C-alpha cells in the first residue's frame, strides 16, 4: 500500500497526516493550501483509514472527546479517532470527506493549546489591519461571516469562523486558519499581535462599547472551542480565557450590516 503524507501548520503547531489514497491526499492539499509545508519536526501525526462513503464509523451524534489512560479518544458519527498524548501519534477512521479531518485537527489543536495553557481557539472571525489583529467573536448567527465579508481591501482576513489566538512571551497573537464558515474562503496564513477582541452584536447603528470585565469574560468563554471531558484541562482553558480578558481589550461591537462598521476598527 502506498504511503502518502502532507504536513499542515496552523498557529505554529505542526501536524502530519498519512494517507494511502492519492485522491484524498490531493483533496487535503487543496483544502489546506497555504498551510502545508515541509517541516521536519511535528507536534502530532495522524494516519487516516478511509471508510466507505456513508459508512457510520461511530455511534455518537455529537462530538465526544475523552481521555483513556494516555490515549485521547474522539468520536462523532462521521469519525472515530485515537491520539496518544505521549507519542503524539494517532489514527483516524473516517470517510473521504474534508469535514471529519477538519474537526479532528481542531480537537487536537485545542488539546495542545489547553495543555500548554498558551492559547485558545475561538468561534470568531479575525483579521489584520495596519499590522494588528482583531477578533470578532460571537455565537452562530452573531455576524462573524458578515463582518468578514464587509472587510475593506486593506484588511487581511485570518478566518471568518475559527480564530486561533496564542500567547508568546506575554504577548498575544492571532493566526490565520484554514477553518472556514459560510464565507467558504480559508484565511491567510499569517499572524499579527492581537489588539482587541470585539464581541459582536447586531443593531441599527455602528458603535463600540466598553463592557465590564466579567461580562467580557462570560462572552469570551461562550466563544471558546473546547471539547474534552477533562476537568483539569477545562480549568486551564478557563484561566487562559480570563487571562486574555485581563490582557487584551474586549469590547462590544454593535453593527448594522454595512461596511461602515469597519470605520470603527483602527
Amino acid at each position: 500500500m502506498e504511503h502518502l503524507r502532507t504536513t499542515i501548520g496552523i498557529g505554529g503547531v505542526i501536524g502530519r497526516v498519512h494517507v494511502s489514497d492519492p485522491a484524498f491526499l490531493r483533496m487535503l492539499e487543496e483544502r489546506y493550501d497555504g498551510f502545508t509545508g515541509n517541516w521536519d519536526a511535528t507536534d502530532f501525526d495522524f494516519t487516516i483509514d478511509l471508510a466507505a462513503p456513508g459508512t457510520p464509523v461511530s455511534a455518537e451524534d455529537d462530538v465526544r472527546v475523552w481521555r483513556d489512560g494516555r490515549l485521547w479518544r474522539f468520536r462523532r458519527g462521521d469519525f472515530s479517532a485515537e491520539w496518544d498524548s505521549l507519542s503524539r501519534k494517532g489514527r483516524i477512521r473516517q470517510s473521504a470527506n474534508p469535514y471529519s479531518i477538519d474537526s479532528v485537527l481542531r480537537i487536537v489543536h485545542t488539546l495542545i493549546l489547553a495543555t500548554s495553557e498558551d492559547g485558545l481557539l475561538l468561534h470568531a472571525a479575525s483579521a489584520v489591519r495596519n499590522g494588528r489583529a482583531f477578533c470578532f467573536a460571537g455565537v452562530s448567527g452573531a455576524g462573524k461571516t458578515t463582518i468578514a465579508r464587509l472587510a475593506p481591501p486593506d484588511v487581511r482576513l485570518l478566518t471568518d469562523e475559527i480564530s486561533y489566538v496564542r500567547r508568546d512571551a506575554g504577548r498575544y497573537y492571532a493566526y490565520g486558519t484554514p477553518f472556514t464558515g459560510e464565507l467558504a474562503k480559508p484565511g491567510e496564513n499569517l499572524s499579527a499581535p492581537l489588539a482587541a477582541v470585539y464581541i459582536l452584536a447586531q443593531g441599527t447603528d455602528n458603535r463600540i462599547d466598553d463592557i465590564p470585565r466579567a461580562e467580557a469574560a462570560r462572552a469570551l468563554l461562550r466563544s471558546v472551542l473546547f471539547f474534552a471531558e477533562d476537568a483539569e484541562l477545562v480549568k486551564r482553558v478557563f484561566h487562559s480565557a480570563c487571562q486574555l480578558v485581563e490582557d487584551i481589550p474586549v469590547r462590544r461591537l454593535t453593527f448594522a450590516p454595512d461596511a461602515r462598521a469597519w470605520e470603527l476598527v483602527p
Partner: protein
Amino acid sequence: MSRNRYIARSTKVAARMVGDEMMIMSGRDSTLFTLNPTGAALWEAADGVTPLEDIVTRQICARFNVEPAEAMRDAEDLVDQLAGHGLVRVSDAPTRDGAGPERDA
C-alpha cells in the same frame, strides 16, 4: 444555636476574580457561575476549617454592613446552591484539604 458548618471549595473547579465578580467554572461540565462581592468573600474564605458563622461575621458583616441574621440566611442559601452544583463541600467538622466527606448541604 445552629450547628457549625465548614465549607470547602471543591478542587474540581476553577475560580478567578474577574472585575468585581468571582467567576467559577465547573471542571466537570464547564458550567459557569458568578458570585457578587459578598458571595466572593464567602467563597474565598471557604477553606474547610473556618466555621461558616465565623466567615459570615468576619468577612461579610464586617465588610459589607449587613445584619448578622440576614447575612447568615443569605450565606446558608448560597452554600446550599453551591453545594448543589458540586462547587463546595459541606462538613460538620473541619476538612483541611477540602476533600472531606461530601453530603447534602
